[in-house]
């Protein structure tokens, strides 16, 4: 299949692996920011193919995972508002908040609907004009423009019963937070391919400039990732940090101006509460005041109750890259995809789910 098979070619993969092996003289620790990368790496078994000098660490790039318990509790409380329909992406439904998940709330009678796109939520709102419909918006710069476009569409159509609980987050500030904390020594970052399609590769220039940190923006096929690893190993060996882009079929230096424009029109940057990183200034997207009638935070006064963290869960450490999932004492024992304790075991982009699903006890 075009644009897929070319990037899964075993012969080219072997070539890249040989290059990496011959180039890599000293150990490097690379962080794949994006949960989609973690899954591709595990799914194709790339960790077992790379030389032992290359250590891959997962980062905070799983929107469901970085949603804090306080925000989850608010969403679950919203779902309990009589008559309200809460629409969200599938993964969110299973993530446990302080006390319960949306799945439990649904079983107890809340109207929670899983959608593939924000447009489906708009349709639900059109089909149920007498009921408030809230879209639970999680995601990074990849998803935020689509939610912004949905809000503009709702405004244009005068759809008064549609609103958004915006938990959207920005990726460059999160990367900065991890580097500023200095908990983990990194030699390079595999940049998020879909996010960078929107924000543009130049948005990562601050990493080599301010932190001396090489960045390789990558797509999600095995060759994309191996190319990025090769670039990062080259840059580390040459001590020449820069931003490389192995995902040029999707990513440009400037990104997608139309998506950025729509995002800027609807959202404004504010603080956000990240699981693992805590409150990070200028790292979240809330609705601008002129869209207040679509802002679920202002429309519904709910009491989420006190926030509690899950005892023993080390999702926060996994999201900062300070441990790999199997280092969490709950991994594969108390916490499995069937009975997840932390969100990293739930999400299709969660690092724990990827390690468990593809790499557990590999004989």
């Amino acid at each position, binding site marked *: *299949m075009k644009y*897929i098979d070319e990037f*899964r070619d*075993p012969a080219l*993969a*072997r070539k890249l692996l040989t290059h990496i092996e011959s180039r890599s003289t000293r150990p490097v620790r690379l962080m794949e920011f994006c949960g989609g990368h973690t899954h591709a790496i*595990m*799914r*194709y*078994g*790339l960790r*077992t*193919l790379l030389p032992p000098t290359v250590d891959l660490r997962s980062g905070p790039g799983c929107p469901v995972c970085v949603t804090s318990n306080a925000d989850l509790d608010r969403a679950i409380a919203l779902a309990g508002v009589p008559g309200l329909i809460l629409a969200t992406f*599938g*993964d969110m439904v*299973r993530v446990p908040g302080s006390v319960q998940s949306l799945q439990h709330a649904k079983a107890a009678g809340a109207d929670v609907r*899983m959608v*593939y796109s924000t447009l489906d939520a708009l349709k639900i709102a059109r089909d149920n004009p007498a009921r408030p419909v809230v879209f639970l918006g999680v995601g990074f710069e990849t998803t935020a423009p689509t939610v912004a476009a949905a809000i503009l569409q709702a405004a244009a159509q005068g759809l008064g019963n549609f609103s958004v609980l915006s938990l959207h987050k920005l990726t460059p500030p999160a990367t900065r937070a991890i580097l500023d904390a200095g908990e983990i020594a990194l030699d390079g970052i595999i940049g998020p391919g879909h996010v960078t399609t929107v924000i543009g590769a130049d948005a990562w220039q601050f990493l080599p400039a301010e932190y001396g940190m090489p960045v390789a923006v990558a797509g999600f096929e*095995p060759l994309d990732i191996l190319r990025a690893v090769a670039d990062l190993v080259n840059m580390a060996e040459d001590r020449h940090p820069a931003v490389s882009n192995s995902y040029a079929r999707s990513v440009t230096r400037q990104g997608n101006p139309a998506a950025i424009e729509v995002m800027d029109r609807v959202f404004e940057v504010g603080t956000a509460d990240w699981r693992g990183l805590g409150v990070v200034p200028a790292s979240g997207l809330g609705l601008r005041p002129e869209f207040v009638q679509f802002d679920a935070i202002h429309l519904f006064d709910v009491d989420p109750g006190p926030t509690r963290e899950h005892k023993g869960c080390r999702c926060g450490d996994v999201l900062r890259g300070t441990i790999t999932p199997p280092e969490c004492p709950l991994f594969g024992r108390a916490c499995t*995809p*069937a009975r997840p304790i932390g969100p990293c075991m739930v999400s*299709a982009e969660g690092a724990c*789910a990827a390690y*468990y*699903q*593809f*790499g*557990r*006890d*590999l*004989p």
Partner: protein
Amino acid sequence: MSGDVILLAHGSGGRLSHTLVEKLFLRYFDSPALLQLDDSAVLEIPNLQPPLSNPHLAFTTDSYVVSPLFFPGGDIGKLAVCGTVNDLSMSGARPLWLSAGFIIEEGLPLGDLERIVASMATTAKRAGVQIVAGDTKVVDRGSADKLFINTAGVGLVPTGVSIAGDQARPGDLILLNGTIGDHGMTIMTQREGLQFDSPLESDCAPLNGLVGSLLAALPLGTLHCLRDPTRGGLATTLNELAARSGVGIEIDESVLPVRDAVRGACELLGLDPLYVANEGKLVALVAPEAAEAALAALRAHENGREAVLIGQVTEAHPGRVVLRTLLGARRIVDMLMGEQLPRIC
């Protein structure tokens, strides 16, 4: 009858119920046992030759709730017949009789019901089984989604045939009769309104003929396991077999047949074809010495033209399915976790 819809009265047991049974169901379901219209079908066990002279009885049931009711390659009725015929076939049974129970939502167009009943009759005829018992209930609008069908089936297992999930042995080779993911992705893309250059079509088909050829081609005792990878897909089926038999399973990603349109749809929706449902596929675990004959028998049948050898059973890593990836690395293939997919069967 087209233009009319099902009313609650069609399930009342009164005149409308009788009209529905006589004018619709009995027009298509015409087995002598059913036409007796007694409270149960009384069936004569056919005059059996060896190896069916001292058979075991296979008995199964399944309910079908797929939405939409009609999809490329089939409909809920065809699915209801194939599903139960295939469940019987997977124990090596020769399927003979089915029952069909209909739970109909008030308002279902009679024309739709007729198309579905006709499709069941055609499929049953093709599979060589008779629908010998039936039931109809009508529920209030909103109490069911258009139409649910339950079918139960009875078949005969020839003497000496012992095919079960716990019979896999290290060294067995694993055969698959064709492409994976066709049914599940057909339903998904119908629901999502996605269209592709080469349209997707469900693989829904009765597999008793294919199993019959397989049994006929192989020495008794060399066919160890048969499973149809329906919900949860091939990955789930292989995990079940590994767990039930206490063996390991190794498969090779590069030989797994997946149609381009299915792959494309899976890429778009973020799904793995290994976990997507099939309705006309089987995996056969056979003793290594019988594998060549088994593959030839599968390929000679219309439902097995694209049959391939996908892997083998190992003594190592019991209970685990391991996949050799396209790049030559190895990784675990886990059971399907969670259920975020819509109703597909």
